[in-house]
């Protein structure tokens, strides 16, 4: 699909549109028609070729952990948590975290699948997180 879902979204720049889609539970990335490469984070020009023919597309949602860290935090502040870089199968990288396993158990090379975590209280926005894939 190349057009935003509503007229109101058509008025929005890529940042706001991406966030609006996440708020609807949808994770979309961009694809450049000129160079046939995917683009993340969302922009209004292609960083690979400088082209402007960017379409929104549904990624497969699968990817591989490129790197990972455990941010140490006191238990009473919520405890340790994972921060990872994920390479989507479409060839773009994003920061995220892997949930469903201990932060220390996240490994480089681990196959993961995307999920949209809805907005939470305290201004935490909707965001893409990843779960380990079975097997």
């Amino acid at each position: 699909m190349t057009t935003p879902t509503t007229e109101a979204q058509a008025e929005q720049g890529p940042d706001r549109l991406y966030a609006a889609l996440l708020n609807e539970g949808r994770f979309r990335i961009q694809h450049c028609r000129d160079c046939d490469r995917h683009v993340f984070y969302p922009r209004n020009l292609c960083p690979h070729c400088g082209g402007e023919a960017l379409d929104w597309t549904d990624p497969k949602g699968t990817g591989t952990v490129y790197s990972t860290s455990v941010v140490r935090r006191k238990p009473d502040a919520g405890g340790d948590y994972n921060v990872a870089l994920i390479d989507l199968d479409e060839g773009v990288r994003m920061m995220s975290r892997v949930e469903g396993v201990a932060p220390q158990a996240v490994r480089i090379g681990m196959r993961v699948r995307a999920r949209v975590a809805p907005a939470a209280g305290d201004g935490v926005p909707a965001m893409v997180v990843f779960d380990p894939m079975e097997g």
Partner: protein
Amino acid sequence: MPAQSLRGGVAIVGVGQAGLGEAHGKTEMEILVEAAKAAVKDAGMSMREIDGIATASVGATMWVMPVAEYLGIHPKFVDSTMIGGSSFVAHMLPAMLALEAGLCDAVLVCYGSNQRTSTVGRAGIAKVRSVLDPQPYENPYQPMQPITSYALAAARHMHQYGTTREHLAEVAVAARKWAQLNPDALMRDPLSIDDVLNARMVSDPLSVRDCCLVTDGAGAYVMVRAERAKDLAKPPVYVLGNATATWHRQISSMPDLTVSAAKESGERAFAMAGVKPADVDVLELYDAFTINTLLFLEDLGFCAKGEGGPFVSGGAIAPGGRLPVNTNGGGLSCVHPGMYGMFITIEAVRQLRGECGERQVGGAEIALVHGNGGTLSSQSTAILGTAAAL
């Protein structure tokens, strides 16, 4: 005009530091000006002769103006370029161009920070930055910046090349051994590999001893054209080459976490200087984190990609090792007031002048200074040399 024509046309003729460690009761401006006065005096010049200025601040975006105002100078050349900790290495090239073009005659590069004793904590600064300098594709995941970004680079290097935490610890231990020879260094207690490995983890695989200090400190240096430099108080230290490169801002946009833009800045700086890594006598690399030193030794051509760990093992970059690196004790053990690029430049100048006492590298004629900024985001390499290196 080919870049090589800039080689040696400008020299650093004065350096000064102030407020290293803890500068209780003094503002950033006050310690900056103390360092500036020391640098101008070191050159045998007067502040009235300064007609160009370069500076940057973590907090104040128009910082060059209050600094010029405080000093009472009306500069013909101003540079407030802010690319993080490498700024004060990157400030060299525009100043060289301005001096060579005759736009001005003496440029003061200066910096000061009371990050350690400041009442504004890290959390407060992070909160303000999230509004003024948003990174909406990283901030929601709460990376502990900048540490987590460097941790991600370290983890990838370990995965890809078999680098170990012991290799990283070698960097911290070498820095500490140099610091023990430097009376100005903040951290001079003995430090072992095991101490680093057993230190409190901050963002895996980095422990607190893999991370730079948080200190106060100010520094300044003065640049003039080479013909003027000969008549001043101290032996000139010539800028043989300087180049800056940036490939990303946020770590998630770094193409390959094991290769920094130091590869490009280094190649350009070496080309301008007409020298190669084997010609360099002493290195001052921006060691905000232990992984930096490994990445920069590789990217600047001192060892092959992936071999940084084995290269530094067995005290190879410590005093008495095969390659003197971070001879002041580095950001890890000497000083790191928010942005550190100023202090590696000053240490290189002092090494080339032979002023470094116990930690002096004998016969040093060519020094490499490498500044880093952001989250491995900006890289600036300078090659400095004595008159013998011209």
